[in-house]
């Protein structure tokens, strides 16, 4: 059913406008920018909007309408929704605000009952809209379509979600869908996660959550989802604010309960916005490792120690390498450099050093995942080691290897040449070792969860989700 919202054959924009500063003008313009299906502007005061014939009512539209966006003042929403039902519209996105979020819970209830009466599904009210990149659909106030990717981002109402989506687009992280849930009066998190789990173009789900409805059902439904879900949950509560009856009551604030619930559901709860997209990026282009044994390769001892420390904090194991691996690596690094994990090339950098070392680490049966660090200095180019990583990744894809490679290219001017190579080679790259390790730890934790609940990993979990 939600397909009618994400992949509609035709769209009515009710409350469309010629004024692009208005929401109804902005959203129509965004839809027209890339969407190939039929678009019908509806506005009783206009006959032509943004070059298209405009209709007085959705009922006047000659053809079928699969999905309708409603961008009219709250007091008109019920009658407009009713007309949509009569017209046979299957999906609604209600942008209009002024419902439960403004204290009008009754109005929202009536809206939901109209939606149900006609068997429609509705996102909102009070949503900023949705984006579905594979359908070329930008039915939102987000400025442009994102670059293609496998991350679908669910965000609860609030301009923060919008800013995050824009920021993601800026950083070049590919997105599949952006869904602003609004008040979740009909379609809620459970519906969306179940839909995205079956959506072939979604590889990983990122969430910005303020609160969850249907808590217990949420846990049960999400537990069955194989795709990774990373979430940031805001509103950490103050505990023990008032005198309570029991110890449990004083300690079990809603935040603690959310953490427990997310864990039981297999959602990876992260602390901040960087973590959210860092993890999503890693999931979007790397396979899930089979265990938590990590090997680190670096041209700087300091950076590898930072990485190793963070590994320990995250419960990842800096694994002992086999003698064979160490001998292979010793052949390409200087005599005085370290051939034990973390590998430190003692400042030397070349395609050959990185290529041979990464290959040796990859072939080591003890190693489940590899972190490759490059600390930029003016003496070397950031490109050859990046090329070595990308080449290894290609080999991994051919060999159907499930060992993820995470990169950390550190430094100032000159680093970006290497970073570009990594980006185009679909290697998750982070500017500091801690972020690389945290992202990797999410891959490992998700794999552990799937094993725990006995969900078999899919082919894309084994091989990564790179297109």
């Amino acid at each position, binding site marked *: 059913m939600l397909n009618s919202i994400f992949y509609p054959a035709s769209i009515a924009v009710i409350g469309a406008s010629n004024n692009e500063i208005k929401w109804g003008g902005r959203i129509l313009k965004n839809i027209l920018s890339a969407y190939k299906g039929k678009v019908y502007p509806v506005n009783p005061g206009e006959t032509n909007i943004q070059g298209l014939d405009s209709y007085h009512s959705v009922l006047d539209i000659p053809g079928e309408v699969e999905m309708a966006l409603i961008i009219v003042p709250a007091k008109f929403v019920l009658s407009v929704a009713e007309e949509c039902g009569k017209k046979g519209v299957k999906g609604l996105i209600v942008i209009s605000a002024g419902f439960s979020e403004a204290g009008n819970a009754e109005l929202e209830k009536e809206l939901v009952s109209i939606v149900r009466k006609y068997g429609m599904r509705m996102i909102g009210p009070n949503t900023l809209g949705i984006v579905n990149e594979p359908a070329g659909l930008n039915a939102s106030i987000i400025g442009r379509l994102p670059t293609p990717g496998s991350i679908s981002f669910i965000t609860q109402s609030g301009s923060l979600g919008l800013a995050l989506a824009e920021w993601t687009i800026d950083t070049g992280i590919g997105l599949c869908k952006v869904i602003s849930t609004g008040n979740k009066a009909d379609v809620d998190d459970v519906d969306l996660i179940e839909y995205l789990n079956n959506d072939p173009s979604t590889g990983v789900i990122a969430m910005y959550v303020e609160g969850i409805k249907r808590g217990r059902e949420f846990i049960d439904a999400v537990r069955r989802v194989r795709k990774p879900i990373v979430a940031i949950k805001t509103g950490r509560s103050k505990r023990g604010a008032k005198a*309570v*009856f029991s110890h449990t009551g004083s300690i*079990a604030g809603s935040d603690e309960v959310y953490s*427990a619930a997310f864990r039981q559901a297999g959602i990876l709860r992260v602390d901040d916005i960087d973590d959210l997209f860092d993890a999503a990026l890693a999931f979007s282009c790397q396979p899930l490792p089979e265990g938590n044994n990590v090997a680190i390769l670096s041209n700087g001892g300091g950076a590898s120690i930072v990485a190793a420390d963070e590994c320990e904090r995250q419960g990842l194991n800096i694994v002992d390498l086999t003698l064979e691996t160490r001998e292979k690596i010793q052949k390409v690094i200087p005599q005085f450099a370290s051939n034990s994990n973390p590998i430190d090339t003692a400042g030397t950098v070349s395609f050959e050093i990185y290529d041979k070392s990464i290959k040796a680490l990859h072939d080591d049966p003890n190693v489940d995942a590899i972190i490759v660090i490059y600390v930029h200095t003016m003496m070397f180019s950031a490109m050859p080691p990046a090329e070595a990583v990308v080449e290894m990744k290609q080999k991994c894809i051919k060999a159907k290897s499930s060992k993820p490679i995470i990169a950390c290219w550190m430094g100032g001017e000159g680093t970006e040449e290497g970073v570009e190579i990594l980006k185009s080679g679909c290697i998750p790259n982070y500017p500091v070792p801690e972020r690389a390790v945290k992202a990797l730890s999410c891959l490992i934790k998700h794999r552990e969860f799937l094993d725990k609940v006995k969900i078999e990993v899919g082919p894309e979990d084994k091989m990564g989700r790179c297109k």
Partner: protein
Amino acid sequence: MKILTEHETKKVLSKYGIMVTQESLAKSSDEAFSIASTIGFPVAMKISSPDISHKSDVGGVVLNIKKEDVKTAFSDMISRIKKAVPGANIEGVLVQQMAPSGHEVIVGLKKDAQFGHALMFGLGGIFVEIYKDVSFRVTPIDKKEALEMISEIKGYPILKGIRGKKPADIDAVAQVLVSVSEMAQKENIVELDINPLIVGEIGAIAVDARAMVEK
């Protein structure tokens, strides 16, 4: 909302197979003496009143009472409580077996608006009060999950037995967690503390408990 006394709470716990201290409510000093004789000396005495949930704060708990002191302990407690909490509805005094030795842990429940009930586990005493070394699950949980939640707390090695000490009966604690998870909805629990649940080498016993239920 209704607050259950310790004795009432323990009756609920017993119903779900949780071991509780041997105890009975005494309304007179003679009754206290005869209950204590059945239990065996020494005994503990605790004030029983729906109006007093923090008993030790008002002098409502006396431990290690010998045979010859039982009757005086009873009447002293009644007069002390009447003075400390004027007008409190006093049901009597709970005469109870002394707690066996073992590790003190806390098991609790809290009703949550979003997720139903949250179940909490931690080591008792300062571990819960100062360090908040606890783990949570949303109910219902199974035994496997209960064992996992026990192993999650930082103080877990203490239960496993450190420095040559014998390990505590972790399986019995897990069983208590499963039973508490089971009663959450059935008994309409709003809040529940079993504090402490004392875990020995064999078995776990609820020594003190309080609950708030929805009527």
